[in-house]
C-alpha cells in the first residue's frame, strides 16, 4: 500500500473543487432554482399537539386569487399516502388526526408564493382536541393516549420490529446484552449510578428544507436538498407506484445537512402538489418551519457502571429513553446506535442496555450528526471520569486501563477496533503537558467515543475515461459541504495518473449515477472512495488488455506507469490507448465497482469512528458562564485524503458539540415549542471560537476505505459535551448531569456543590 509521502494528489490539501462556485455566488442550491412554469406551495400546519381532524373546508382558499389547488390528506386516497424507511407511519399530509404542533395539514399551490401564503388563512379546519403526551414518562404511562393507533408497518430498509409490544407508544425497543451484569455489579469494588439528560437539539442547516417537484406522464423529477436521494426515490416510487427509473432525484448544492436532511422530508408534499396540478411546484420552508420538521432525539439515560479496585471495568447497565416525537423517521436506528455506542472504545465484560425510542406529540426526531453517540457518550464519559476519581487515578490512566487495543473486540459479533485509540489519547495527554499547569478557575478534560459507523455497505461507482485523458467520476454520494466531490476527484486523479483539473465528479442525479445507499454515518470517503478507487482499477485492467491487443504483445510484457502504459520505448497515455482501441476520436471507456457486504466488508460496521478530544474551559463563578479556551481534536481517519478538509470536518463537528454542550436546546412549554426560531435558539457564533485550537490527524492507514482511510466528521462531536461537563467538574467540583451547561444551570450547580 502507498504510504503518506508516496502520493501525488491524495493526502494533499488540494483546493476544493467547488471553491470558485461557492465564493462567487455561482453555486446554485435548490433554493435558487426556478423552473419554467413553476408554481409555489405553502403548508398549513397544525395548531394542536394531538387532535382529530373533524373537517377541512378549502372552498374559500380555492377561490383566492392565483390559487391552483388546495390539497389535504383525504385527496391522497388513490396513492400510498404513508411513508417512512424504518416505519411507514408518516402521512404526507395529516390523515384523520394531527400528532404535533406544526404538522402539515394542507398544502396550497398558487402561481406565486404570496398568493399561496395568503390562501392558507382561508382554510378552515375543525379539530377535536385529544389528550397529548409531551414527554417520555407521560407517553409510557399505562393510561397514556395512543399516538399511533393503526397497525405498525415496517419500512423497506430496516426490518424493525414493532416496539409497541412493550408499550403502546414505544416506537422501537433495542436490547444489547452480554455477560452477566447483575452478578458483576454485586461483587464490584466501585459502582456509580446516575441519571443524565441530553437536550432536544436542532441541526440548523442554513438552507432550510426545499424541494421542487415536476410530475408528468413521463414520471417524477424532484430537485431537493436531500442527503440520501436514493432513499427518497424509494419513498416517492412507493407513494405513486412508479418504477425506479421514472423517479429522478436531482440534488444541486446543499446548504448544510449534518444528518438533518437524511431520508425523506418535504419531497412527498411537493410531489403530490405537482401530481395534482400538473405543474412544477416549489416548496421552500422557512427556517421557522424547518424547526418544526425534524430535530435530534433528546435522551434520558439511567446508567450504572462498575469497576474493580484497579479501575478495570466490570459492567455497565443502562436504560435509555429517547424522545422520538410524533413520527419514527430515523429514530429506530438512532435507538439501535445509542444502545451500541454507550460502550465507547472500551472493553466492558458485562453489558446490559435497554433503549427505547418513545413517541410523543412533539416535532419528529431523526438523524443528527453523532447519531445516538452524543446522547450516550455524555453519561458514559461522565461516569468514567467519576470512577477514575473514586479509584484515585488520573483520567488518562483510567481510560488507558480500559481502552481496546487495535484488533480487540468491544462488541461481540462486530468488527474489531480498527484504530489505535490509546495512541490517540496519548496525543491529547502530551498536548495537556505542553499546556502546563491548569490556571485557577479553569478545568481540563479528555473525552473518547467509538461509533459503529458507515452504515450498510452498498455502494457503486462508475468512471468514464476519455480519449483526451480526462476522467469523469459518477457518484451517487451527495456533496453537502463535507468536500466529498473533492476527495473523490483526488482518488480518481491519483489512480488514473492525471491532474485534478482533468477530473470531474458528476453527482446529484439518480438518473445518471449508479446507486449509493446514503450520505451519512461518515461513510462517503470510506465506501464511495473505495468504490471510486476500485472503478479506476477496473478501468485500468481493461486499458492494459486493450494496450496489449493494440501492440500485439502479452499483457505481462507491459508496464503500468503513472497515467498510462509502457512497452519498451513505446509509451502511451490512457487516452492514447482508448483512441487506438476504438480507432476513433472522442471515445471513452467505463470502469465500474460495486461494494456489497462481503469480503472484508462482511463484518459490520464498515469502520469504527473514533472520537478523541481535549478541552479546557474557564468558568465565571459569578455568572456560571463557561467559555471554551482550548480545544484539541484527534481525527483518527486512517489516511486523510484531503487533510485540510478532514480537519475542517473535525472543527465543524466539535463546534456543534460545543453548541449542544453549552447552549443549544429546544424547549417545550406544555404543548408549545417556545424557541423554534433562530432569534431564540442560540447556535455557536464567531465569538465562541476558542482562542487556542489544535487539530491533529492520526493516519495509521487502518481503515477499510481507500489507502486505509476511514470516515470522519462526527467523531469530534460525540465526546465534546461530556468533555465540557468533565472540565466543569475539574474546574469547580460541580457535577452537572443535564445539558446544555447554561450559565443558569452551572450557577445553580455552583451554589449547590458540597462545601469543602
Amino acid at each position, binding site marked *: 500500500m502507498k504510504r503518506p509521502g508516496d502520493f501525488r494528489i491524495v493526502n494533499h490539501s488540494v483546493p476544493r473543487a467547488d471553491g470558485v462556485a461557492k*465564493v462567487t455566488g455561482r453555486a446554485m442550491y435548490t433554493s435558487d432554482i426556478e423552473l419554467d412554469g413553476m408554481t409555489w406551495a405553502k403548508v398549513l400546519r397544525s395548531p394542536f399537539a394531538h387532535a382529530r381532524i373533524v373537517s377541512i373546508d378549502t372552498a374559500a382558499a380555492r377561490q383566492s386569487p392565483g390559487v391552483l389547488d388546495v390539497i389535504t390528506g383525504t385527496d391522497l386516497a388513490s396513492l400510498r399516502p404513508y411513508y417512512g424507511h424504518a416505519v411507514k407511519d408518516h402521512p404526507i399530509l395529516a390523515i384523520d388526526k394531527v400528532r404535533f404542533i406544526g404538522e402539515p395539514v394542507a398544502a396550497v399551490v398558487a402561481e406565486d408564493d404570496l398568493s399561496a401564503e395568503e390562501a392558507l388563512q382561508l382554510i378552515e379546519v375543525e379539530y377535536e382536541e385529544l389528550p397529548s403526551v409531551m414527554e417520555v414518562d407521560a407517553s409510557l404511562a399505562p393510561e397514556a393516549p395512543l399516538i399511533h393507533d393503526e397497525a405498525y408497518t415496517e419500512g423497506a430498509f430496516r426490518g424493525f420490529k414493532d416496539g409497541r409490544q412493550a408499550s403502546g407508544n414505544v416506537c422501537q425497543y433495542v436490547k444489547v446484552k452480554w455477560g452477566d451484569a447483575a452478578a458483576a455489579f454485586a461483587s464490584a469494588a466501585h459502582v456509580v449510578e446516575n441519571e443524565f439528560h441530553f437536550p432536544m437539539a436542532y441541526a440548523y442547516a442554513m438552507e432550510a428544507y426545499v424541494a421542487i417537484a415536476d410530475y408528468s406522464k413521463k414520471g417524477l423529477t424532484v430537485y431537493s436538498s436531500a442527503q440520501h436521494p436514493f432513499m427518497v426515490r424509494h419513498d416517492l416510487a412507493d407513494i405513486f407506484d412508479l418504477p425506479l427509473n421514472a423517479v429522478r432525484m436531482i440534488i444541486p448544492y446543499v446548504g448544510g445537512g449534518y444528518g438533518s436532511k437524511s431520508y425523506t422530508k418535504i419531497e412527498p408534499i411537493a410531489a403530490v402538489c405537482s401530481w395534482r396540478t400538473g405543474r412544477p411546484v416549489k416548496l421552500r420552508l422557512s427556517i421557522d418551519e424547518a424547526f418544526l420538521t425534524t430535530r435530534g432525539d433528546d435522551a434520558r439515560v439511567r446508567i450504572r457502571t462498575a469497576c474493580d479496585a484497579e479501575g478495570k471495568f466490570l459492567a455497565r447497565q443502562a436504560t435509555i429513553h429517547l424522545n422520538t416525537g410524533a413520527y419514527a423517521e430515523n429514530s429506530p436506528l438512532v435507538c439501535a446506535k445509542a444502545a451500541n455506542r454507550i460502550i465507547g472504545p472500551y472493553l466492558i465484560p458485562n453489558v446490559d442496555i435497554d433503549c427505547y425510542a418513545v413517541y410523543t406529540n412533539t416535532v419528529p426526531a431523526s438523524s443528527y450528526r453523532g447519531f445516538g453517540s452524543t446522547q450516550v457518550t455524555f453519561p458514559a464519559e461522565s461516569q468514567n471520569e467519576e470512577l477514575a476519581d473514586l479509584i484515585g487515578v488520573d483520567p488518562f490512566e483510567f481510560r488507558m486501563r480500559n481502552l481496546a487495543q487495535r484488533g480487540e473486540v468491544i462488541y461481540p459479533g462486530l468488527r474489531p477496533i480498527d484504530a489505535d485509540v490509546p495512541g490517540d489519547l496519548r496525543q491529547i495527554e502530551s498536548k495537556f503537558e505542553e499546556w502546563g499547569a491548569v490556571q485557577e478557575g479553569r478545568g481540563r478534560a479528555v473525552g473518547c467515543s467509538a461509533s459503529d459507523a458507515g452504515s450498510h455497505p452498498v455502494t457503486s461507482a462508475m468512471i468514464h475515461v476519455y480519449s483526451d485523458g480526462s476522467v469523469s467520476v459518477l457518484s451517487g454520494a451527495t456533496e453537502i459541504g463535507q468536500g466529498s466531490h473533492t476527495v473523490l476527484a483526488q482518488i480518481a486523479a491519483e489512480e488514473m495518473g492525471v491532474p485534478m483539473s482533468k477530473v470531474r465528479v458528476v453527482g446529484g442525479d439518480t438518473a445518471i449515477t449508479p446507486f449509493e445507499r446514503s450520505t451519512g454515518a461518515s461513510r462517503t470517503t470510506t465506501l464511495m472512495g473505495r468504490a471510486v478507487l476500485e472503478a479506476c482499477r477496473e478501468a485500468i485492467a481493461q486499458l492494459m488488455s486493450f494496450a496489449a491487443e493494440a501492440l500485439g504483445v502479452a499483457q505481462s510484457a507491459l508496464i503500468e506507469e503513472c497515467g498510462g502504459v509502457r512497452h519498451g520505448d513505446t509509451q502511451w497515455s490512457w487516452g492514447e490507448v482508448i483512441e487506438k482501441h476504438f480507432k476513433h476520436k472522442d471515445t471513452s471507456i467505463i470502469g465500474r465497482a460495486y461494494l456489497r457486504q462481503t469480503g472484508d466488508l462482511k463484518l459490520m460496521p464498515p469502520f469504527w469512528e473514533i472520537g478523541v478530544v481535549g478541552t479546557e474551559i474557564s468558568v465565571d463563578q459569578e455568572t456560571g458562564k463557561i467559555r471554551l479556551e482550548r480545544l484539541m481534536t484527534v481525527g483518527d481517519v486512517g489516511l486523510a485524503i484531503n487533510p485540510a478538509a478532514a480537519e475542517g470536518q473535525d472543527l465543524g463537528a466539535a463546534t456543534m458539540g460545543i453548541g449542544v454542550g453549552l447552549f443549544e436546546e429546544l424547549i417545550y412549554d406544555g404543548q408549545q415549542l417556545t424557541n423554534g426560531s433562530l432569534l431564540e435558539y442560540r447556535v455557536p457564533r464567531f465569538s465562541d471560537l476558542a482562542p487556542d485550537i489544535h487539530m491533529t490527524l492520526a493516519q495509521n492507514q487502518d481503515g477499510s476505505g481507500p489507502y486505509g482511510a476511514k470516515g470522519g466528521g462526527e467523531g469530534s462531536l460525540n465526546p465534546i459535551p461530556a468533555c465540557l461537563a468533565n472540565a466543569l467538574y475539574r474546574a469547580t467540583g460541580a457535577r452537572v448531569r443535564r445539558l446544555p451547561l447554561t450559565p443558569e444551570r452551572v450557577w445553580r450547580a455552583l451554589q449547590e456543590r458540597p462545601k469543602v
Partner: protein
Amino acid sequence: MTVEFQLNGEPVSVAIEPRHTLAEVLTRKLRLTGTKVSCEAEVCGACTVLVDGLPVSSCTYLAYEARGKNVVTIEGLEDKNGNLHPLQQSFIDEFAFQCGFCTSGMILSAKALLDENPNPTDAEIIDHLDGNICRCTGYLPILKAVRTAATAMENYS
C-alpha cells in the same frame, strides 16, 4: 413602483412592490442568486449585501430603501477581468467554507471590515463577523481567510 439603484457598479431599474425585501428583488426579480437567505430575522448574516459600503441584512432591508444607493452583492466582487477578490481567493485557500451557504454574506461582511480597517486584529475580525453564522466550519478557517486577505490586499495596494 420602480426603484433605481446602482448594482455592482451598473445602474438598474426594477419594478417592485413596497413590501419586497432587497433579497427578494435581487434573487427573484434580478436572479442574482448568490445572496442567500436563511433565518429571515437579521440573526444569521447569510443575506448580507453592501449598501453604500455598509453591510445590511437584505432579508429585512426593503428594496425601496435602496433607491439611489450603491448596492454590492457577491456577484460584484470579481474584477473586470474575472479575477477573484482577495477575500474570495483566501476563502478558497483557507478552506473557509464547506456547504457555502454562509459564504456570500461572510465575504461581504469581511469586505466591509477590510475596506474600513485594512489591518484588523483578530478581536476586531471576530467582533465584526459575530453577526454572521457559519454552521459548518467552526469559524477558525474564516478568521484565517480574513487575515490572509488583509495581508494580500495590503501587498496589492
